[in-house]
């Protein structure tokens, strides 16, 4: 009989948990929609920006006068790759857990990326509490921490992070700029990626025939590059932040959906056990009464 009470209590508790996970799932769905909208509206701009930047940089690099141009900090950062000794990395994870493998995956990626590098040679910026915790645990001293960033704050963060990155390159403080984040494919599919923002990898194939056209850069190459490239870095950063945000909510939604289903299964199982016990006890009582009457 004691078992019956316990199981009833257990069912009630699982039901409560299921309600919480269901609510979290719905909240994540709403947040996912918002992040996704923002991301989808940014993507055409970011893609165009990337193809334009690639084509200009590729052009200048192949130009016979390239050596004679006096380049500003951004153009140098994009055009003159050098051996990567010190690197700047922005690691993007989430503030909260309960989102499946979202944080674990991106941090695993970060572990693999940093393996074999001296910690002193990494200038690390972290976004999200989980990333900050990871940095502390692994002995990185993070340069800047961005915690609890709302969706409306991503633009400010991307501006702040990218501010002065090109100058750091020029001063020899860093040799490359990387971002590690979760790329958003769909609500159920995210993948951690490492992207290099600059110097640009020009081996990557240009995605359309247009990029082979030689552009006049007006009013002059330097002014144009110094206006374009910082915007490009900022846009890439903004895109990474939004990809990560959409991925997080997608991952949480999937995790909470699974949790709700599991809770449902558990309730079904417990209810079955409960009914069996109940039935067994009734049967027992009947047998007792019948045998008592017979006696």
């Amino acid at each position, binding site marked *: 009989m004691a078992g019956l009470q316990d199981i009833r209590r257990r069912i009630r508790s699982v039901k409560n948990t299921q309600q919480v996970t269901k609510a979290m799932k719905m909240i994540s769905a709403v947040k996912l929609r918002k992040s996704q909208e923002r991301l989808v*509206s*940014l993507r*055409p*701009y*970011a893609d*165009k*920006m990337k193809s*334009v930047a690639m084509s*200009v940089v590729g052009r200048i690099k192949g130009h016979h006068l390239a050596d004679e141009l006096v380049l500003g900090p951004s153009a140098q950062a994009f055009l003159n790759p050098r051996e990567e000794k010190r690197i700047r990395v922005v690691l993007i994870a989430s503030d909260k857990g309960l989102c499946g493998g979202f944080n674990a995956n991106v941090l695993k990626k970060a572990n693999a990326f940093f393996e074999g590098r001296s910690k002193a040679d990494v200038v690390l910026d972290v976004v999200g509490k989980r990333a900050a915790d990871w940095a502390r645990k692994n002995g990185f001293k993070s340069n800047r921490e961005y915690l609890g960033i709302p969706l409306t704050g991503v*633009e400010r963060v991307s501006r702040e992070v990218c501010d002065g990155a090109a100058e750091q390159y020029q001063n020899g403080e860093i040799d490359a700029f990387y971002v590690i984040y979760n790329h958003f494919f769909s609500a159920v599919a995210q993948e951690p990626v490492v992207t290099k923002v600059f110097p640009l990898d020009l081996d990557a194939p240009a995605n359309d025939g*247009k990029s082979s*056209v*030689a*552009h*006049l*850069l*007006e*009013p002059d190459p330097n*002014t*144009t590059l110094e*206006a*374009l490239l910082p*915007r490009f870095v900022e*846009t890439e950063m*903004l895109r990474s932040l939004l990809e990560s945000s959409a991925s997080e909510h997608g991952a949480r939604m999937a995790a909470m959906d699974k949790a709700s289903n599991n809770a449902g299964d558990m309730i079904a199982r417990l209810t079955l056990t409960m009914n069996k016990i109940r039935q067994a006890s009734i049967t027992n009582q009947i047998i007792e009464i019948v045998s008592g009457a017979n006696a």
Partner: protein
Amino acid sequence: MSLSEPILLEVVTPHKRVFSAQVSEVSFPSAANGYYGILPGHTPVMTPLGQGLIYYVQGGEKHWITAFGGFAEVGSDHVTILARDSETVDEIDLNRAESARQRALKILKEAQTETDLNGAQAALDRSIIRIQAAGHPGGHGF
């Protein structure tokens, strides 16, 4: 692609794709060299975008789009505008632009600090561009 309208004009901002269609003529403000007029077969150019009005000709009619900084990339058969902010005439709220203009004028008169002054001047410029754009749906050019 229709032969009479051989230029693909695309205007995108970080927030949305403002415009994308075939047109026959485009004009946009650059940051340094004034307005560029683009006809089919223009030499490829890339330049920072200024503030002002973009116009395009479609079906023989001029249409206006605002532009607030960014980038323009021109090819023989396309113009790509990567604007910081931009809107078509339909999206402009004339009342809001007008009240923004009044507000900016008021601040300009009373401004004490350089930052206030610059901010108000920028706001004034933006509101005037919007009012101009809303003012001529098919009107005169520059």
